[in-house]
């Protein structure tokens, strides 16, 4: 048989990596503080709601952590299929908001299927490579299925249009494929293909505002009061923070509304202005610690599914924070990606905590060895 004895609930709870939860909570705490400052010293409207969401998400995370990892493996494709259906639903009957169609109304609440897809894709790819022997991984024909699994949702997300999420999905998938052992030269070929596709995408796929963002990134002074305004103001806020910052709730750029969307995508700028380089490094260190924990969990997992799931979740997390920070510092074009656990916003908070739930599940069930083809 070869199955280990199932752990009891108490044993599982004892196995949970509480230190990781403390780290995550610290990061979320930074978010609460910044949202409090963004509302000029008010817990409403942002900080309070963010706390409620975090609490709910925390519960969900623990619940997911306790669910057997084999359950996740078994339902991986099902979840992926559901996510894909939701994405298609957006295409058909989505709610248009902020010039893009990203939401689907489920009656009780509005759901952003692209967020669900971030986790579903990781699950599906992890399952696929879990069941694939090493010698098969190298074959081109075994690359067709994962390629479809990746490209279909990416294309749907691009159509919404949501360039940020599309890039995130692509990059996370690439990380999983890399870790699964796909030959490096194939990545080189894919990279070449992407480079070739860029001019075509520019002509046929990118929307006006997306082109604007890229052009503005390439030359921020192109339109200082238009599209370049945000990034210019963001850099001013960041730079004027200096080493120690202007002090909590003292950020002039953010509080005088020069900074756009200070509670969501540009919250890191606000932190940088108020707490300076010290604050930036501290937050970045917290993030790196979380990522290191994720790596440790992946390495200690005794099943390929767990390893790929853990690294997939962690890669998404890293990409979130990298894209967001690089964007507000003017390193890459403006793409709508929130700062994980800090930016105001329910969907990304919940989906991140679900991801961490899966990570914890991998940890809790790290010693379970799962055969390639479970019955």
């Amino acid at each position, binding site marked *: 048989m*070869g199955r280990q004895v199932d752990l009891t609930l108490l044993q599982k709870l004892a196995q949970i990596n509480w230190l990781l939860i403390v780290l995550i909570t610290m990061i979320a705490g930074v978010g609460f503080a910044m949202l409090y400052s963004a509302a000029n010293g008010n817990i409403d409207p942002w900080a309070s709601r963010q706390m409620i969401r975090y609490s709910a998400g925390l519960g969900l995370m623990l619940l997911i952590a306790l669910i057997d990892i084999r359950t996740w493996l078994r339902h991986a494709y099902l979840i992926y299929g559901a996510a894909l259906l939701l994405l298609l639903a957006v295409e058909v009957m989505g709610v248009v908001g902020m010039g893009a169609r990203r939401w689907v109304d489920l009656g009780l609440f509005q759901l952003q299927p692209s967020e669900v897809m971030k986790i579903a894709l990781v699950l599906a790819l992890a399952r696929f490579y879990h069941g694939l*022997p*090493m010698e098969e991984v190298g074959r081109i024909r075994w690359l067709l299925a994962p390629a479809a699994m990746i490209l279909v949702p990416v294309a749907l997300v691009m159509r919404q249009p949501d360039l940020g999420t599309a890039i995130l999905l692509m990059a996370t998938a690439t*990380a999983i494929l*890399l*870790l*699964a*052992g796909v030959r490096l030269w194939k990545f080189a070929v894919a990279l070449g293909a992407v480079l070739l596709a860029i001019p075509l995408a520019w002509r046929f796929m990118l929307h006006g505002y997306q082109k604007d963002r890229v052009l503005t990134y390439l030359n921020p002074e192109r339109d200082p009061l238009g599209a370049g305004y945000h990034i210019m*103001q963001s*850099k*001013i*806020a*960041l*730079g*004027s*923070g*200096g*080493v120690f910052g202007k002090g909590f709730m003292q950020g*002039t*750029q953010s509080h*005088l*509304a*020069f900074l756009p969307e200070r509670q969501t995508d540009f919250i890191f700028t606000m932190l*940088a202005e108020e707490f*300076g*380089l010290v604050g*930036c*490094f501290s937050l*970045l260190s917290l993030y*790196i610690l979380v*990522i290191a924990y994720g*790596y440790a969990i*992946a*390495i200690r997992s005794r*099943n*390929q599914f767990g*390893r*790929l799931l853990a*690294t997939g979740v962690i*890669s998404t997390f*890293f990409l979130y924070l*990298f894209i967001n*920070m*690089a964007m507000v*510092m003017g*390193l890459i074009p403006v793409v709508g990606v929130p700062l994980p656990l800090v930016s105001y916003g329910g969907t990304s908070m919940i989906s991140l905590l679900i991801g961490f739930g899966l990570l914890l599940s991998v940890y809790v069930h790290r010693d379970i*060895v799962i*055969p*390639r083809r479970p019955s």
Partner: protein
Amino acid sequence: MRIPGLERDGSRHKTFNRRLALLGGGKLTLAAVLMGRMYYLQVLESDQYHMLAEENRISMRLLAPPRGLIMDRFGRELASNRQNYRVVLIAEQTKGVADTLDRLAHIVPINSHQRRRVLREVKRKRPFVPIKVAENLTWEQFARINVLLPDLPGVQPDVGEGRYYPVGVETAHIVGYVSSVSEADLTGDPLLELPGFRIGKNGIEKVYDESLRGKAGNSRVEVNAYGREIRELARQDGQPGHDVVLTIDADLQEKISRRLRDESAAAVVMDIHQGDILAMVSAPSYDPNAFNLGMSTKAWRTLIQHPRKPLINKAIAGQYPPGSTFKMLVALAAMEAGIAGPGHEVFCNGVIRLGKSKFHCWRHRYGGHGMMDMKQAIAQSCDIYFYDLARRIGVDRIGAMARRFGLGEALDIELVGEREGLVPSKDWKLAVTGVPWQLGETLITGIGQAYLLATPLQLAVMTARLANGGIAVRPKLSRHLKPQDDAEGAGEDADDDRTSQNDGNNIRTTDEGAPPIGVSAANLQIITDAMSEVVNGRRGTARKYKLDKELGMKMAGKTGTAQVRRITKAERKAGGKLGKGTPWKERDHALFTAFAPVGAPRYATAVVVEHGGSGTYAAKLTKDIMAEVLRADPLARSAMGRTSHAPNNATDRPNNADNADNTGNKERKT
């Protein structure tokens, strides 16, 4: 336990670990890039971004300084700053701008034009920017708005500062007016770009605009990204404008204005020693406050097209042939040239021939004046006598004398639009017309016609220079400028204090620096005696207009009648003069220059009535004007009452319009 594929898992695990290290390295590299970028922005470039952040945050707002006052010689305010009750609308504080305007219209009249302007500005400006709805409200309207404020969302009563001319119409030509800044006025002074700022457009307001304006203060305010003010960080109050004290006696000015109300005329009263202009009236006048309140196009067109040209200051911009008022200078030129003395006699039979032309005396209908000496020739204004003198001395010597007495040149009075007049010479005519000078023109120059032109101000200056013993006094309108906050005489401004002390007792016999003209005192005495004879002599042309006995003073003067057009032969036969039936526009100008008191003169006047008929009409007006001057005697009063600071005097003297009325009533009762 044998688990299928487990051994294989080992190799997958190894690959995974290897690749994970690779990925981790990549992520660390990217994290390092982020940190490097943070360091670059927050440490290396921090200063620059700090500066940019401050620039973003801080906005300089200009503060308009209060404009300096303009006062008459006794400190009576001629231009002051009055609270301007306004009502503004802040769009973001009301749900319906149109609805609020409707309600407001029940209190203040808002016409469709204003309404459209407000609605247009609401669209154009940010919602928190106050938009002016109406200004110059009455106190009653302002109070009602304040009471009804709860029912007027978005409406905000506001008190601004506006220019006000308390005397108004009577001093309009001197004080001038302020109006909105036009594009051409922009000099780089940031004050001028303040919305609603007004600058001097005419008169003293324009000439002394920079002193009156003061220096702008500023306020550093913190603003947000939408330009809304959050708080004031620092404030530097500007320097208020300097006050200007004029030489004018506003009471006198008002009285003379009233006397000339129905005429198209100009009158100048000046101090013959100092050159102080005590009154300068140009009738008709206009209301300078109307310019400030904003004038309708119709009202403006009426002013512009008025046949009597109310906007023109005729005292400095009206040019008239001096006519017989010029004869003193011809006589003086003859005596100074040694060609004719006071005893020089000419027989006037009413006409003189020169070649084929006949030159008439105004009295030719009665057979002329008979034998004339110089004194009688001036007193009776005999034209034949001056044709003769002019022919003897020539136009160039006449012209030279005229220029020494201030004709034909700008006197640099502190006003806008001063004209130079015209004193012809042979060279001038040849250069301008290309035709040589004719002797006949010399003859009529002798009676102040031909090409001669003079402004009333120049005639007053001429008379002053004749009466003050030949000193080239220059006219002036302002005494000194003083800082506005110097009312207690703190003496902050040393320079100013010194001049004040010099002026202190104000008994200066001559204007400092005014040079003598260099004519003999004896000759001047002959001229001034003759001028006295004009009024006080048995046969003088103005003998009907002697000053009343009770004044105990006499005036001297000279009539002048300036032809507006040539008299045709037919007309000369019919009566020689233009009769009552002549259209107003074709009647002669009436001139009279005078000084008083005879014996110890202090005041000189010049009165020109456009199309007034004859010089005796101007003499009649001058009689009343001079009587007012001597009764008020502003020079004596200033000599006694004046200390260094004008405003103190203002409180001493019951001189405001209201007070004057009150005392007048009391006197009548007792």
